[in-house]
């Protein structure tokens, strides 16, 4: 199991990295093709994604709808801005809870790494104030101790 890293850059960004034992093409496809996205981008146990729209071209629509099967759900909308198969995706997204969160600007890159891929996701935080604080290094490190099983987030 690969280690997930989560770090901050400046006040505004969160960087997530994760290695995958598959070539960039496969990881890129798993991030852009609806039938693949629906199999993994599910969050906590018990949730599914009954609706997944991913129109992977500049200006294309993103819409993910999650459900816990008990009448609770929320959704995300977004747009693709730039796509460079199979190494870079730039998109913007927002959660609807149901009020929309501020736009989260995300750049995801997929670099060959050994026989696999290093994914790097750079997010301009949805709520700059709140999240930059939450993830700010001091707190993050202080709390790290209690997250024994967290080797594997974002």
């Amino acid at each position, binding site marked *: *199991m*690969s280690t*997930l890293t*989560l770090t901050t850059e400046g006040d505004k960004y969160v960087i*997530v990295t*994760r290695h*995958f*034992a*598959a070539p960039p093409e*496969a*990881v890129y*496809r*798993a991030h852009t093709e609806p039938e*693949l996205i629906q*199999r*993994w*981008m*599910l*969050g*906590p*146990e018990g949730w599914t994604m009954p609706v997944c729209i991913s129109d992977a071209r500049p200006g294309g629509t993103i819409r993910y709808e999650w459900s816990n099967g008990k009448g609770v759900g929320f959704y995300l909308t977004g747009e693709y801005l730039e796509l460079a198969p199979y190494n870079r995706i730039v998109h913007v997204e927002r959660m609807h809870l149901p009020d929309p969160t501020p736009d989260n600007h995300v750049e995801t890159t997929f670099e060959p790494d050994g026989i696999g891929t290093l994914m790097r996701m750079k997010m301009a935080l949805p*709520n700059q*104030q*709140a*999240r*930059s*604080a*939450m*993830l*700010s290094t*001091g*707190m993050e490190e*202080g*709390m790290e101790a*209690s*997250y024994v*099983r*967290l080797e*594997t*987030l*974002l």
Partner: protein
Amino acid sequence: MQNLDATFSALADPTRRAILARLARGEATVMELAQPFDMTQPSVSRHLKVLERAGLIVRRAEGTKRHCRLASDGINAIDQWLSQLRQAVAKNYDRLDTVLADMHSSGKKKKRGQKS
């Protein structure tokens, strides 16, 4: 968890984070907190008020001195929230590992199928 918005916006300020970092080492008076920041007591007090409202610290008076310490409930709420977020994301990527492995093996099957 209702208070989380206030909590996170209280954390947005670097001085307030530094105050929390100091308090993580133990209780301190307002004067002790003001010292390293080169700040007046009133401005430190303003920050402390924000932290208190957000449920991150507790203040108590002892004679003329005011002592501050971390409020475990507030810290635990953030801890729990961050932990849930991390776990959800970690779980996603673990599932993605499985999807990628499936893609790989079904790709192999296809190739083999083509050869035979």
